[in-house]
């Protein structure tokens, strides 16, 4: 007898060895529930090594998805369901599971060898001593899947490779989903490998059927979410970012040039763009990070939109060239997909610890606009807006994303190309006197492209004379130029839309001020706090430098400001410095995003403290 229970939202955590196909199973599940109309958010958690030792805790790959019939803002806190393909996956994730959660395990992954690799003592098998209250599905995935492979002409060593599809099939049964999306995907992916296709198809079907045959199993139904009407797609942060650059280039009528050196977690931007050659995108895999940004500067000098992407250590290497771009006053986009630092740090983990570097990290007085993305799909808008500012204000712009946004996905109500704002670079076309450093009322200089007759000029990193751009060591001129460049960047804020609260009253005890990937977790936390009657509001910053002109006044309406950051307190210092307000940080430096409950707790503490 099968019951069906309705749920509003569910968080599932898929975990297994990095060779178990966890990411594929997870992303397939995400696509299926998205197409079925649920809202969702995902969070892949990769092991640090490409092929970490098989069966060990450090080799566990995870994929978490939170989906539901209501609006979803985060990949979920503690999961409701844990899928553990082996003992290591179980060991790593059991503690974070919700009390009374569901656990799906394959006993074959808990044999002596796996137990030993996972660090369990001899004879200690967690499956022999299952914690009460939890609902275990102990499914002999390996054996059942081998049965399903009986008639498939596949070498014995490959027959276990489709176990991920078996498990996925079972989950589809559990959550009342059909197999169509994944079947289509498999057909496309294994077009040229009919045996592999058959193996995966059979495994998926077998997993689903298995669910159907076992007795006394509860199935779940999650209704469609009430999302704004329109056309949606799933998108990861890196995909969205790449599209934002392409869209901005198209809308401004410029060629897009992306110079980059492979680095985790930014490489996917390079991959995305390299696959878009039919959009006229020129990608250049440079010999190092410095050449990557330098080539982009060269492209911008030549009238293209030069862009480059990297992560923290690469950002450090690009610093000198960033200073040059600022001095040349050429448009340039530098994307920093932040990861755990310092130094090589935690390459596969997320962090927001490059904010200070972005705002201040250069020699000399080198102001550069900084823009932060706050969700996977928002990476599109951040890249688009950054490119607009770079082109219309003739300045390098830094875009801050991070490992979490880069790899997470969410449904996106994508825009129509025609609805995207126009971008108008200040090209100088007509001949006649050209002052390379003459400026308009926004302190923006004109962009004259090599190849244009009569506008020949020389740029350089030496201090330049006002207007002419000739080399100048004049003391007053230097001060004038430093101040002018600062004013030019400050004036970028004149374009900003009015700063709006995300939620909460205009005046309250506490304002939770965020930037970057904390948006979703803060939304859930502040929403809950408001429900509980606390006096709290939420504001999220897109523009980190220059800060919005109307921010100071907004902040003054709150007694205390709480700034959750995945670092040791960076935005908080800038806010205190600039506005002299009472701001406190809620820091988390674990390579993981915030859980909403952590922020809620901090809000409560702050409200109570104030009383």
């Amino acid at each position: 007898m099968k019951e069906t229970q309705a749920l509003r939202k569910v968080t599932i955590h898929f975990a297994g060895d990095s060779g178990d196909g966890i990411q594929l199973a997870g992303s397939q599940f995400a696509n299926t529930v998205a197409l079925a109309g649920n809202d969702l958010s995902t969070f892949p958690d990769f092991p640090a090594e490409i092929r970490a030792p098989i069966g060990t805790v450090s080799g566990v790959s995870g994929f978490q998805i939170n989906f539901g019939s209501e609006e979803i803002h985060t990949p979920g806190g503690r999961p409701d369901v844990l899928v553990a393909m082996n003992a290591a996956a179980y060991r790593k994730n059991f503690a974070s599971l919700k009390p009374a959660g569901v656990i799906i395990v394959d006993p074959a992954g808990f044999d002596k060898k796996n137990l030993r690799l996972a660090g369990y003592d001899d004879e200690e098998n967690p499956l022999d001593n299952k914690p009460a209250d939890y609902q275990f599905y102990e499914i002999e995935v390996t054996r059942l899947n081998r049965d399903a492979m009986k008639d498939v002409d596949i070498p014995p060593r490959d027959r276990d490779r489709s176990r991920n599809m078996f498990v996925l099939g079972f989950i589809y049964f559990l959550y009342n989903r059909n197999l169509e999306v994944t079947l289509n995907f498999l057909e496309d992916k294994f077009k040229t490998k009919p045996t592999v296709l058959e193996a995966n198809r059979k495994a998926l079907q077998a997993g689903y059927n298995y669910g159907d045959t076992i007795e006394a199993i509860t199935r779940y139904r999650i209704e469609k979410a009430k999302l704004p009407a329109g056309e949606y797609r799933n998108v990861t942060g890196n995909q969205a970012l790449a599209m934002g650059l392409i869209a901005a280039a198209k809308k401004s009528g410029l060629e897009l040039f992306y110079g980059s050196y492979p680095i985790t977690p930014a490489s996917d931007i390079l991959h995305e763009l390299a696959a878009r050659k039919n959009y006229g995108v020129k990608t250049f895999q440079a010999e190092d990070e410095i050449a990557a940004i330098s080539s982009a500067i060269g492209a911008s000098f030549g009238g293209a939109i030069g862009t480059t992407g990297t992560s923290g250590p690469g950002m450090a290497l690009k610093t000198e060239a960033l200073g040059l771009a600022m001095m040349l006053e050429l448009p340039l986009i530098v994307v920093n997909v932040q990861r755990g630092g310092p130094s090589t740090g935690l390459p596969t983990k997320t962090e927001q610890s490059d904010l200070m570097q972005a705002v201040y990290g250069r020699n000399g007085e080198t102001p550069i606009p900084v823009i932060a993305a706050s969700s996977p799909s928002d990476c599109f808008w951040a890249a688009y807006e950054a490119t607009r500012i770079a082109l219309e204000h003739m300045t390098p712009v830094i875009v801050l994303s991070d490992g979490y946004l880069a790899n997470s996905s969410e449904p996106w109500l994508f825009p129509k190309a025609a609805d995207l704002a126009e971008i108008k670079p200040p090209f100088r076309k007509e001949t006649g006197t050209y002052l390379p450093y003459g400026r308009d009322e926004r302190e923006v200089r004109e962009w004259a492209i090599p190849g244009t007759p009569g506008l020949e000029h020389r740029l350089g990193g030496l201090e330049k004379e006002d207007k002419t751009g000739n080399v100048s060591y004049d003391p007053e001129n230097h001060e004038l130029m430093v101040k002018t460049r600062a004013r030019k960047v400050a004036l970028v804020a004149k374009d900003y839309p009015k700063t709006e609260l995300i939620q909460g009253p205009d005046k309250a005890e506490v304002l939770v001020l965020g930037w970057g990937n904390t948006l979703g977790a803060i939304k859930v936390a502040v929403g809950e706090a408001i429900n509980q009657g606390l006096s709290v509001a939420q504001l999220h910053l897109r523009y980190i430098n220059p800060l919005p002109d109307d921010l100071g006044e907004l902040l003054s309406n709150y007694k205390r400001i709480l700034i959750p950051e995945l670092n040791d307190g960076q935005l908080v210092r800038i806010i205190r410095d600039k506005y002299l307000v009472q701001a406190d940080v809620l820091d988390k430096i674990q390579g993981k995003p915030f859980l909403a409950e952590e922020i809620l707790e901090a809000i409560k503490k702050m409200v109570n403290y104030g009383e």
Partner: protein
Amino acid sequence: MENEVKLTAKDFSSDQEVKWCPGCGDYSILKQMQSVVPELGIERENIVFISGIGCSSRFPYYMNTYGMHSIHGRAPAIASGLKATNPDLSIWVITGDGDGLSIGGNHLIHLLRRNVDLNVLLFNNQIYGLTKGQYSPTSEEGKRTKSSPLGSLDHPFNPLALALGADATFVARSIDRDPKHLRDILAKSHLHKGTSFIEVYQNCNVFNDGTFLNFSDKKLKDQHIIHLEEGQPLIFNQGKQGIRLNGLKPEVVSLEEGFSANELWIHDSSDATKAYILSRFFDDTMPRPFGIFYQEDRSSYEEQMIAQLERAKEHMGEGDLDDLLRGSRSWTVD
């Protein structure tokens, strides 16, 4: 151009006062460049000079063309991005032994292997001039400078051997004190499709005066220089001596004592092995070769980049922004 006005060297000289030390070899190189470019048939607006940091890197300021005085060592990378997006420009990278072989060594070798169609002029004065006299990556071993009071321990680079090792497609050497030769090499480098690498011996009369005296002094140079002429035997010292190849071993032979020109090595700039042997004429036992060591026809980086874009458009169709945004799987919420 609408009305064909013939430009002269003067048209290519900018309004900026040239600020190298009096007597610096850079003056001659600038002058040769300014007199060669009008002959090349390129419009002024299509010429770009890109330099890094160092004495030689001030060069772009003095050319009335487009130009960029960039940061230390990075000119090859900047020029690569510029050329990739503006393949019609004639781009000249101006660098020195410190800029191009020390801090920018990595970019230089990668530029050469990619074969981006631009010209690199490496002013080699075997010293750091702008920072006032430290030994450079081309300074001879044991050189005493402010940073090596007891003599430098560094083994020097052989720039042309390095360029050949990086699979450069045009490798040549010239010298500031031979204007005609330098102009000739500059013109030929312009004609070459792909990266042209030209090492120019340049005298720094303040910090390293006379390093190249053997190759510039009237009395000395005949014995120390050998000019490479395509299809011609390797003869030097006013026809008195020549080079013969004994297997792969070059030998100096005397034409006055029985050897005839027929027995000598005939210069063939398409032969990579011989070019490498020539590049190893690097000590006092052999005359120093000047001219084009090696030249090869290999398609340029930006040519291939553009071809790839064209092919992608043919196969996948010109990209449409709405298609991109929609992706392969979208769904509608009513």
